[in-house]
Structures are given as C-alpha cells and as structure tokens.
C-alpha cells in the first residue's frame, strides 16, 4: 500500500469546558478514504472531537482547546475563513435537524451559500445527495414541501443529504442511526460503503457492531483518553491492545 499523508492529523488535543476536561491529550491520524470508527461510552468526548474538527466548538464560549489539528496539512486554528473548513467537512448530528424550508432548499442551501446559482447544477446536486442519503424515492414528488414535515428518520436522511451537498472530502457522522429504524440504517450503511471510495468517513457510534461492520480502523475513547486505535481485525479480535477495549467491545465493561 502506498503511504499517503493522512487527511487529518490530531496532535495532543486537549479540550476542557470550564473545570471539566473532555479530551485529555489525544493524538491520532485519519487516513485518506478510510472509514474510521470511533466508539466509547457517553460523555467520553467523541462529539467534542468532531466539534473541534469543524471548529463549531468555538460556539461554546466555555470550551478551551489546546493542541493542533491539521486538515490536509493545514493547521485549522490558523485558517482565516472557517467556512472553507466547514465546507470540506460534512457533519451529521445525532438528532435530525430539518431546516424550516423546503426539502429542495434544505439540500440546496449549502451550495447556494457557496455561490452556486445555476438551476441545473442545483437540481443535479439535490437529486444526487438525496439519492445518496436513500431518500430520493420517497420525496422526489414533493421536493417543495417543508423539510420539517418529514418523519424523524426521513429528516435524519435529509440531514445526511445536506451534509453531502457541499461535496465534503470528509464526512463525520455522529451517532447517525439513533433516530432511525434498522432497515433505513442498513440502507445508509450501504451508501456509506460506496461513499468511502470518494471521501474519508469518520463514524462516531454507540453501536459497537456498526463500527465493526463499517470501519477499516476503530478508535476506542474512554473518559477523554484514546485507549486504542487499530485495524478492526485487531480491535475486534480476541486480543486487542488493551483489556479495556476487549471488555467494552464484548459488553463486559459496565
């Protein structure tokens, strides 16, 4: 395998909210076009890690970030235009958020904000993104009804379509499946397997089995520390690098 430079390099990342520290010095690389699973119990810092990546952490005034994060070799804390960074990273939050505009406008929002005006191009993007999010067939006849009128699961797929709409290089999914049914989850997982040919995917999940199914490598984060990061064949084997990983993956850990 030819070694490419990692798409994301995180070095000694520490984040604290006031006196409470959420990430305690994490270093990891994300390789181009891999699916990196991130597992760990609630409150272990997984979401914080994603919010550092697209710098939305800055909207939380109490959050303090130390350490460096490089995306494509660039220190993101030095970027002058944070919207550039956010366009490179698609972000799917755990709870679906349909914007109170039409389905079409939801998906066309990001391209329009980036200056795309051509109707043909927008149409093409909207169809492509909705198809990728396994939603196109259900909504193609009512693209101009409100995104907020969709069911929870449909709104979550709409959120995924929106995250793809600005052609990100990196797609971050934060427990995307907690609001949707298993069948839809499987359809989206199939889509992710296709998407990984064209982008890097970071999959934060509570479902250990989801990481096992989808990821190439998986990181186990516990209480703000990176316990282990290795190929799935190691992490999910009988002898991962850490006893804690084994216990968590096998549900022994309480």
């Amino acid at each position, binding site marked *: 395998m030819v070694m490419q430079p990692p798409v994301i390099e995180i070095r000694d990342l520490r984040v604290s909210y006031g006196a409470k520290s959420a990430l305690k010095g994490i270093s990891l690389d994300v390789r181009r076009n891999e699916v990196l699973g991130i597992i760990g119990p609630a409150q272990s810092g997984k979401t914080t890690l994603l919010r550092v990546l*697209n710098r*939305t952490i800055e*909207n939380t*005034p109490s959050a303090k970030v130390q350490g460096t994060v490089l995306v494509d070799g660039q220190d993101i804390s030095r970027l002058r235009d944070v*919207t*550039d*960074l*956010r*366009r490179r990273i*698609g*972000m799917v*939050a755990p*709870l679906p*958020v349909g*914007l*109170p*505009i039409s389905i079409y406008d939801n998906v066309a*929002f*990001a391209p329009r*904000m*980036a200056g795309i005006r051509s109707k043909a191009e927008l149409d093409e993007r909207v169809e492509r993104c909705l198809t990728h999010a396994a939603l196109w067939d259900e909504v193609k006849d009512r693209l101009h009804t*409100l995104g*907020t009128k969709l069911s929870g699961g449909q709104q979550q797929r709409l*959120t995924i379509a*929106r*995250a793809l*709409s*600005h052609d990100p290089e990196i797609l971050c999914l934060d427990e995307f499946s907690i609001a949707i049914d298993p069948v839809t989850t499987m359809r989206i997982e199939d889509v992710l397997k296709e998407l990984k040919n064209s982008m890097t995917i970071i999959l934060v999940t509570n479902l250990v089995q989801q990481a096992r199914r989808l990821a190439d490598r998986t990181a186990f984060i516990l209480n703000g520390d990176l316990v282990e990061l290795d190929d799935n064949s190691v992490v999910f084997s009988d002898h991962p690098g850490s006893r804690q990983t084994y216990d968590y993956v096998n549900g022994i850990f309480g």
Partner: protein
Amino acid sequence: MFQATPFTQRKRRTEQLAKAILVLMTLCLVIPLVLIVGYLVIQAAPILSWDFLTSNPIRGMRAGGIWSPLLGTLYLVVISLVIATPIGVLAAVFLNEYARESWFTRAVNLAVVNLAGVPSIVHALFGLGAFVLFAHLGKSILAASLTLAIMTMPVIIASTKEALAAVPLAFREACWNVGATRWQTIRHVVLPNSISGILTGIILQVSRAAGETAPIMFTGAVFFKAIEEGNVFAYGLFDQCMTLSMHLFTISTQVPDVPHALPYGTAVVLLGTVLLVNTLAIGLRIYLRSRKKW
C-alpha cells in the same frame, strides 16, 4: 372500579373552583374594556363624521375637527418608528447573534432593560436637552420623533432579542455545519423564522408612541396650529405640530365651554387609530405565522 374516592372528589372540586376563578378574572378584564369603549363611542357618536377627521379645530378649539392633531400624531408615530426600528432590530441582532458574553454586552443588556423601564417624562427631558437645545433642532416634529424613538428603541431591542432567541439553536448549528457564515444564517434562517415576533414588538410601540403626551410636550407639540386641510404633507420636519393625545388633554382640561362630545370624539379617533394599526399588525402576524414552518 370507577368509584369516586374522597381524593378524586376533592380533585374534581378543586378543578371546578380553579376554572371558575380563571373565568371570573377574564371577565374582570373584558367587562371594563367593553364599558369604556362603549361609553366613549356613545358619547362621541353625535360628532363623528368624515368632516370631523378632515377639518382643523376652530373657534378656540371649541368646534371643528381634529385634522391637525390627527396628522401630527401620524407624523410622529411614522417618523419615530422609521428611526427606531432599523437601529433597534439591528442592535438586537448583534446582541443576540454576534456578541459574546463579556462585561460590555452585559452592560448593554442591562442598559436596554433599564431604559425600557424609564418613565416617559425622563425621556422628555432628555429629548429637550439633547435634540431641542444641544442639537439645535428646536421644538419640532423631528425633535419629538427622535425623542419618541429613544423611548421606543429599548423595548424594540428587548422584544426583537426575545423573538430571535426563540429560533432553535439547532437551526443555526445546522447552517454553520454546512459552511454558511453567520450573516447568511441570520439572513436565510433566523430572520425569516422570527419576523412575526419582531413585528409584534414593533407594532406594540405604535400605540405607545401615539398615546404618550409627556415626551412630545417639551419637544415638538403645540397647543394649537391650523394646517392646510386635506393635504397630508401639510407639516414639515421642522414644524411644530398638534397631536391627538395633547389635544385631548387640552380640550378636556384647559379650554372652557368645549362641547361635550368633542373630547370623546378625539379619544375615539385616538383609540381607533391605535386599534386599526394593531389590527393590521395582528393580521400580518397571523399571515406570517401561517408560513412558520416548524
């Protein structure tokens, strides 16, 4: 199985009592309102006519209409809102969407809350000092409008902030996540979803601006002034003007031998003007809310 126990009976009685008290309180609110408006209209009925609206007061304000004060009130309300609305709304957008928690924003927020509670006579003195004397505007429609604008602005800021804060943070985060700037987010998502609340706040200030006497007495209102009848541009920015609220005060207390119906007629027109504006506002709000999407 469904037998009433003492506890459920007590619960039912409490429920009935609570409902009765609430209905009673609502009636306490509605009955005086109906009586006041009804009494005003009955007393004013003999004098109300199109001529009453469109002719100047004559014979020492003992006869004629209310054209001059009516137009004066409209000028003051419109000009003061044209000044106060953009400043108030944009300041609120800054405070709610951009400003970070700091001693400065805390001080500004405190000032806004306190200014909203300042009695209007204090605004009057400020207007006299700042606009009439210091800025050399003299007693004029402009000075009075600016004073009213200073009076209404803090309330517009406060109500706009509230309307903006009612838009879920998740909407903003969804926009930021896809690379929209703060302004794009405000322009395309936050403002369209708070506009009805913002409008409500502004419209409530119309009645306040129309009804206040104190702030304009010192800064631009006059006892009597005849203007060209039927010409809506009869006042200039630097003229003094009559207003309905002041006119009502004058003919009820300062002028002897005023016909009985005249003050009532003036009151009804003042009330009617405010009600008309409020009705329009409520209509607009209903329309905008019907387009609200979550």
